């Protein structure tokens, strides 16, 4: 069962990474990040369930809390960017080009 859980977590992580790398919309990228974080949560919970310790649960709870704040801050940044630049296309946000 642990293997199935880990495979699921890996699949979710890969999907999230794919989203982050390919989406051009900043909101889409944030969604991808959420998927990756939740994949980690699945791992933590799975190890907690099959390893017999509570550390995984605690860490998962922490992650969820952090994720919430991250989304709040991330979305706020996206909104500000939109107000200033009138776009949230990641390809156009390249002010740091060398």
């Amino acid at each position, binding site marked *: 069962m642990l293997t199935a859980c880990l495979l699921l977590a890996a699949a979710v992580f890969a999907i999230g990474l794919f989203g982050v790398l390919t989406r051009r919309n900043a909101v889409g990228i944030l969604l991808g990040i959420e998927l990756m974080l939740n994949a980690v949560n699945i791992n933590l919970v799975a190890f907690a369930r099959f390893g017999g310790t509570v550390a995984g649960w605690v860490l998962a709870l922490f992650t969820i809390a952090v994720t919430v704040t991250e989304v709040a801050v991330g979305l706020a940044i996206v909104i500000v960017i939109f107000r200033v630049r009138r776009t949230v296309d990641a390809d156009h946000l390249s002010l740091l*080009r060398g």
Partner: protein
Amino acid sequence: MSESELPLIILGAPLLAALLLGCCPPLRRAGGPAAAVSLAGILVALAAAGGLLARLWHASVTGITLRVVETVPWLAQVGPTPLARVGVYVDALSATMAGLVTLVASLVQLYSLGYLADEPRSALGRYYFYQSLFAFSMLGLVFAPNFLQLFVFWELVGLCSYLLIGFYYHRPAAARAAVKAFWVTKLGDIGFMLGIVLLWGATGTFDFDTLFRAAGAGALPAGLALYMTLIYLGAVGKSAQFPLHVWLPDAMEGPTPVSALIHAATMVTAGVFLVVRAFPLFAAVPGVLELVAWVGAFTAFLAATLALVQADIKRVLAYSTISQLGYMMAGVGAGAPAAGMLHLVTHGFFKALLFLAAGAVIHAVHTNDMWAMGRLGRAMPKTALVFVVGTLALSGVPPFSGFVSKEAILAGVWEGGLRGPFVLLAVTVFLTALYMFRAVFVTFFGAARAAGGHPADPPAVMMGPLWLLAFLSIAGAVLGSPALGQTLPRFLGAAPAEHGPAWLTPFSVALAIAGVGLAWLVYQRGALAPARLARAFGPLAGAAARGYGLDALYGAGYGGLLAFARAVGWVDRYVVDGLVNVASAGTARAGAALRLLQTGRAQDYLYGITAGVLFIVVLWRLWA
């Protein structure tokens, strides 16, 4: 005013003039006023030098030898005493020298008013600025109380010499001659500096006074012979002794009054002055002193043979100067510094006279070539008269001053037991009379030749100094004549003996008369054709015309040095600099290429991170 304050006036007046002219361009460019400032400075110095001489003379008559050394600390304190002090050293020697320098400098500056009257005003101002600076430097050298101060002023007079030789800097020959003079004398100065530093390392002092006391007590360091030889090298360069004499004939590219002052009467005698000043130290190493005498005698002989084949009247006088400097050095080296100083003073008078008279001739006919002159005695009788007076003095014909001083040197060399140098110097007496009267007969007598312009005696401002110098060339005999009590040598503290054997006077006079007679036969009567005489000497005459190949030798050395410098320059430019350029260009290129990676898009960086993590994971899997 005390004996230590008068030198400050002697030094200060020309310095003030030089500062005024140097720091105030409008004054300098005005020409005439600049000359007035410079003249005022040197005349004040002359008056003060006269006062100083009178005071020392008065003391010496009453049997007191005045010697005042006044110094203040100069370089930082090391241990209990300062590293070096600066000040004045007043004794009969420095006062005599200061008197000669200020007198000749005053006359030359006065003469220059007429000689350089046609120059542009700014050039005239520049000339007088250099003149004032030179007067200050030379006097600073004369009064130096230690080797270090002497060296500083030594280099300053070298600088002034360089500037004044290159006065007509738009003429390539003058610019080349200036550089040549600078480099050749520097060759000797390297030795001078090394000697001073080594002597300081061995004794811990630069002061003449301390060193002389050590010499008196026999407490001098063991390596003294080496140090004094090195110091003597500086004198070899400055006083144009063999083999560093090659710069002086070329230095004639400067204005003729400069040749008279710097390259005949004063600066070139600084080398002799140095050996006389440091005589107690030289006397402690007799081997070095003998070397000085031999080199001096050989220089006197060599330069006299070279003077025989010159066509340029100034070059004849230049080689004659080298020859007479050789006499002075030989006298000092033979242990008769007072005789050397006597000849230095009388030579200062009659050689300045000869140069200034030659300048008057050149000014009148606009050429230096003696063979283009001839029978100028008719057109310029006064100039011819003073020139003949100078020539008689230089040739050592009694009762002129040169006879007395040359006699003193010959006597000194004989008494010193140096037979070789004595023979060389005696032959040179004959040669001196020959080449000088050759110049006289060819220039002022003989057949009239097509010289340009309408030659006439120069204006009073030029003639005045000539009359005065002619008078001194005769009256200078009073300074050293044994019959009149050898005034100057005794003033300088020499023992009153040094008479030489009884046959010496008739011998040297006969040699001089023989030289005059031969010159008369060859160049006036035409009894012997000069060309046939030259053939009789065969290849020697040709070699002399080329300066015995010494110039070619130096030229080859200089060329080799230049080629080496070019090779080093090439390596530096293309190998050393090339490597640096490759490194910097490579860095710039790499930066430009890497810059393309910085797209500014977060997702591209994320690709990189992901790829990197995958790479590390795969690598780790393969490893484990």
